[in-house]
């Protein structure tokens, strides 16, 4: 007899041992990225052909810097979750799969942090 509720099982012990968290995080970042990516495309278009001073001035704006950091965090989180699913679906060797997922997560953290710190450096005028 199963004494745990359906909700309790889903929250704690799904097939990937993390319930629906991965799924929800993928959707949450997706919803965030709809306006963020449209804003980013508009910003890139506005900066086409801009010289260095103009580009730096753009990053100095607190709104632009904030939205850029948000975009970077949401993008790399969403990308890492998506690439993880791709690896889980197509890589059948357990060791290679785990190594691939670790590489994806490590690279996402590294590149995301690098981009975010570059944005903050520009924003604070370093």
């Amino acid at each position, binding site marked *: 007899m199963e004494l745990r509720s359906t909700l309790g099982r889903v929250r704690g012990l799904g097939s990937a041992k993390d319930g629906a968290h991965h799924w929800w995080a993928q*959707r949450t970042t*997706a*919803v965030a*990225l*709809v306006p963020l*990516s*449209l804003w980013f*495309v508009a910003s*890139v*278009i*506005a900066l*086409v*052909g801009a*010289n*260095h001073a103009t*580009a*730096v001035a753009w*990053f100095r704006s607190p709104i632009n810097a904030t939205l*850029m950091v948000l975009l*970077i965090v949401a*993008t*790399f989180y969403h*990308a890492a979750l*998506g*690439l993880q699913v*791709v690896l889980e679906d197509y890589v059948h060797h357990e060791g290679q799969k785990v190594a691939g997922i670790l590489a994806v997560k490590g690279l996402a953290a590294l*590149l995301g942090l*690098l*981009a975010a710190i*570059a*944005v903050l*450096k*520009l924003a604070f005028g370093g």
Partner: protein
Amino acid sequence: MAQSERPLSPHLQIYRPQLTSILSISHRAAGVALAVGTLLLVYWVVATASGPAAYATAQAFIRSWFGMLILLGWSVALFFHLANGIRHLFWDAGHGFELKTVYASGYAVLAATAVLTVVAWTLGCAMMGRP
């Protein structure tokens, strides 16, 4: 998992390609392409933060034919993944599963991708001539 001699379901290449299946795998392919494309985003931001010389190098690369090709592919992948992603969010909310609706939304995604790409590049080219 032990290999068995049980019959397998038909392989992917047996099925006739349909809009639904093509858009489904393209969503995944575009997502992977966009993940690789984040390298360009990182390069652009880091180059800007590194100073005028690095910025000029990045700008020259993006303006080369190879840079433009990457940017074109990136923009198509982004607009497609964005539009089809919204389609997926509607499915996640439980809407649009009827076969007719699935096809209509699929064609809408293709149309939105084309329109957004043309609009973005028209505006971008218009910005090209400024100082």
